């Protein structure tokens, strides 16, 4: 019923012709898929914070990739809300009348409540979780030869950016725990590169890996109990796992090359990582308990920074050889494609919907739609933003 209702109002608004993107080597083709968007409208929300909540809601709906914001008369659904002491009471009504698609209370300040309203609507409409309530963590650098890089956190639309570390060192690769309550990152504040975990609730930081050499690139397992990371204590950077509270490492790789950037499959059984043991860096998958690595054929050289989609179907990665593009490897078809336009893109991190990716582009954070290739800026007033990671 809801589906047929939604389908009637769906308008194909993007009919982009598939286009070729030139890249070095035998690069795969970028496929700009036809996307359909549902026309929606937002009734102005009354009250002091009303205009803010209205604007945030509209921006979230546009950013979702599933909606086009139009005049109420043309909308398939109209979202309306009332500010309450605890947040927003929101409702999404179909133009045809009948039961609202969403009717619920969303708590938090106007901004947060609007994000949750947007997510509830998008999930009801598409069956896929929205990401408007997600947050991002990233590193931002100062200028010059002796630059410092500190770790920051913000909302996924760039609002509420705040500095988490004041290490006066080079902070790298912040990554959220699955529940978003912790961030693992590496820093050389001791003089050597160690891995730390910040607990966002208690504001406490713990050093979880300080073995000889480099301890970096830590990623939480889906159940949060384990970190996969790159350790060089053996005399060579290798992929290892350790308990997420610290402890003895289990070594997973034993190669002559540079092994780094491990990330987990959403079921926790596999790890995808970067190795340059066969020349320029490429992507390899291995069982999370160890075993024989298998190389992914992405048809691009110099691929790094893999990130496994929350639905388990895709792996996104950076392609340096093409001047900085984002590729996506489909696990089922075993085919790779370039999903970005322009250059200077790196460090993709999937959002909850397994469609959008937060990336950095020449020091600016962007939200990339892997279906359309469109990238929009995530504004903040910080410079040299790198290695974004999203809550899932």
């Amino acid at each position, binding site marked *: 019923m809801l589906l047929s209702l939604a389908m009637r109002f769906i308008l194909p608004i993007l009919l982009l012709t598939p286009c070729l993107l030139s890249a070095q080597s035998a690069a795969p083709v970028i496929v700009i898929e036809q996307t359909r968007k549902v026309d929606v409208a937002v009734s102005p929300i009354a009250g002091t914070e009303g205009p803010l909540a209205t604007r945030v809601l509209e921006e979230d709906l546009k950013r979702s990739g599933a909606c086009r914001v139009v005049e109420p008369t043309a909308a398939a659904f109209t979202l309306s809300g009332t500010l309450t002491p605890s947040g927003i009471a929101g409702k999404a009504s179909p133009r045809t009348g009948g039961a609202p698609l969403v009717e619920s209370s969303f708590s938090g300040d106007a901004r947060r409540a609007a994000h949750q309203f947007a997510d509830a609507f998008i999930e009801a409409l598409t069956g896929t979780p929205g990401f408007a309530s997600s947050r991002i963590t990233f*590193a931002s*650098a100062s200028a*010059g*030869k*002796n*630059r410092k*890089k500190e770790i920051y956190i913000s909302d996924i639309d760039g609002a509420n950016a705040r500095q988490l570390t004041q290490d006066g060192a*080079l902070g*790298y*690769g912040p990554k959220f725990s699955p529940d978003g309550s912790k961030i693992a990152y*590496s820093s*050389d504040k*001791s*003089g*050597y*590169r160690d891995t730390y975990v910040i607990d966002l609730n208690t504001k406490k930081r713990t050093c979880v890996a*300080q073995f*000889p*050499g*480099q301890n*970096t*690139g830590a990623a939480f397992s889906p159940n949060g109990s384990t970190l996969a990371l*790159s350790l*060089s*204590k*053996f*005399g*060579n*950077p290798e992929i290892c796992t350790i308990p997420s509270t610290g402890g003895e490492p289990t070594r997973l790789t034993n*190669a*002559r*090359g*540079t*092994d*780094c*950037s491990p990330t987990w499959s959403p079921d926790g059984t596999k790890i995808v990582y*970067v190795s*340059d*043991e*066969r*020349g*320029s*860096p490429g992507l390899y998958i291995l069982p999370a308990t160890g075993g024989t690595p298998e190389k992914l054929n992405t048809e691009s050289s*110099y691929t*790094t*920074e893999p990130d496994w989609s929350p639905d388990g179907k895709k792996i996104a990665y*950076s392609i*340096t050889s093409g001047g900085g593009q984002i590729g996506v490897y489909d696990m089922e078809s075993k085919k790779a494609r370039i999903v970005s336009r322009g250059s200077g893109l*790196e*460090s993709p991190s999937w959002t909850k919907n397994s469609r959008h990716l937060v990336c950095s582009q020449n020091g600016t954070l962007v939200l990339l739609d892997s279906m359309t290739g469109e990238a929009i800026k995530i504004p903040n007033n910080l410079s040299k933003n*790198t*290695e974004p990671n999203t809550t899932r």
Partner: protein
Amino acid sequence: MKYTYLTLLVLLAILTGCSNDAKKGDGAAFGDSSDSISDTALPERSGNPDTADYETLKSETVLFAYDSFTIEAKERPKLDKLANYLSNNSSTKIVIAGHTDSRGTPQYNLALSEKRANAVRQYLIGLGANGSNISTVGYGEDRPASEGENDSAWNQNRRASPGILR
């Protein structure tokens, strides 16, 4: 035994050097998965690489090709000198600080810079140096020797610098 390895290394270096110039592993001494030398674990940490003296041994800074951790033949005399210095100063602890140029992605550059430092350390051990006196650190692309975005700057930035730990 050591000489057998060295001969093998030289042979491999010549063979692969001719056939595959641009790719990593062109020296074959490091980075080729077919060779059988095992890495030597890093020593417990000592000193602070951040405050090490990188001036005294500055002329022994080893330069690398793009995306490579191979010690090129032209760089090897520097490591002979460094090994010599270490043998004359057997209680001195040093750190090898690896670096990359600004191209490439952050984590890989960190790991590659560490790998460059590891490759230099391993080479020094091959020359008879005491591995327990040699630590490593990788700074990725964030401690450039030159700030430019051109070949000349990149060439200077892809390096491994020996520092004396104080």
